[in-house]
């Protein structure tokens, strides 16, 4: 395949940055998108040019590290996949592909296509956990019976890998899907109910501090989410927040 890549290049966080065009040839349809970028970078390094910086780690769709906004969509045109699971067969020979970093005020660009998603970490630190006594008398979680439906929904919410595709694709850069998944995975379990009020208030407060936008329920996040996190979680978080507002 012969392609034209239009890639966002930015030297550092202070640099203004811009789109740079790269022609590339010899791309196999069965290559992953990241492997295609590896080929590009190999060529750039051989020519003595700076390779394109991009995030990646497991390359198995598990870690949520790879980002990229490809041809106007988070993780590209395929559904239910991360960028490392996107294959070049999704494109046609001769295509022009725009590759940009995830855009949000709360996801500042560090270099080229690499963005700082530590705002998600700070939201997690604000309440995305349960406090457990680990001094030797920890109670086995399995001793507490949990309704199957709740357990399944909690597990589905916990499947969120925090990749940020929801923020990147949302026209408002809202992080509601991510935060609601993290709230829901505990809100549905008895172990999580003890700190439920503090959790939702603290996490939403931190989300607002980070500068994410407001959810307008377009549903784009749910469609682009590689793990299929449901909008149902956002409704649940709204209920949790309203209830916590009355209690807190």
């Amino acid at each position: 395949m012969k392609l034209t890549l239009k890639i966002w290049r930015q030297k550092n966080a202070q640099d203004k940055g811009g789109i740079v065009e790269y022609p590339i040839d010899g791309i196999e349809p069965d290559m992953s998108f990241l492997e295609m970028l590896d080929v590009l970078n190999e060529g750039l390094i051989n020519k003595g040019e700076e390779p394109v910086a991009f995030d990646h780690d497991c390359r198995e769709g598990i870690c949520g590290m790879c980002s990229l906004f490809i041809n106007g969509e988070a993780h590209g045109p395929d559904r239910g996949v991360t960028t490392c699971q996107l294959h070049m067969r999704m494109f046609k020979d001769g295509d022009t592909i725009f590759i940009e970093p995830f855009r949000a005020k709360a996801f500042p660009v560090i270099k080229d296509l690499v963005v700082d998603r530590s705002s998600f970490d700070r939201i997690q630190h604000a309440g995305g956990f349960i406090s457990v006594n680990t001094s030797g008398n920890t109670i086995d979680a399995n001793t507490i019976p949990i309704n199957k439906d709740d357990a399944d929904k909690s597990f589905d919410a916990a499947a969120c890998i925090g990749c940020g595709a929801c923020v990147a694709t949302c026209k408002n850069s809202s992080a509601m899907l991510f935060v609601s998944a993290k709230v829901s995975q505990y809100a549905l379990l008895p172990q999580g109910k003890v700190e439920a009020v503090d959790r939702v208030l603290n996490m939403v407060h931190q989300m607002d501090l980070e500068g994410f936008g407001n959810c307008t329920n377009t549903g784009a996040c749910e469609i682009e989410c590689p793990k299929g996190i449901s909008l149902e979680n956002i409704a649940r978080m709204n209920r949790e927040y309203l209830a916590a507002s009355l209690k807190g």
Partner: protein
Amino acid sequence: MAQSAQLNASILKKVAMALSGIFLITFLALHVTLNFISVLSEDVFNEASHFMGYNPLIQYVMQPVLAFGVIFHFVMGFVLTAQNSAARPIAYAKYNGAANASWSSRNMIISGLVILAFLGLHFYDFWFPEVSYKYIAGTAPDATRYYGELVHKFHSPVRTGLYCVSFILLGFHLWHGFASSLQSVGMHNKYSRFLSKVGLWFAVVVPAAFVIIALFHHFNN
């Protein structure tokens, strides 16, 4: 250390936006029902309009509440849109919004602005003359004038066209707004799918009824 709920929290703002939207949806249902009477019976329309125009509960309680609801919904819409724009200071070079969200959900501000402009025209046509009639000129009540005033406004094809275009945009606004307001207040249960369908029907039937009313009076008189 727990944060206390703050009035400017993003979730509370969207809940407030949703509640004002649900209130305006209820008002629209009432408005279209009353207006549609004009297609069926001149006398009943005059009677109903006179009741609405001179009932103290409606005039001095419901009307101010409605005005507050409308202003709140628009102001909050602008505030949220400004905040959302600020959340992405650098736009994408290529953004394929249509790939994962409907036009109506992505352009609520556009349909909202058209509705705001329409309200200006609507107030100019009906509300200001009504206030002038009752409170400035102090004219004695006349229970037979409403149908004639309504029909007169739809003589102009331009005005009728503007009304129809606005109603279509209202339909787009409701297409997303109805279900979105339920989601915002936290409703997502076994009734949600049914209510979403009701919302889609509402978004078609109500604007269509308004269009029929406008066209009926334009062509019938």
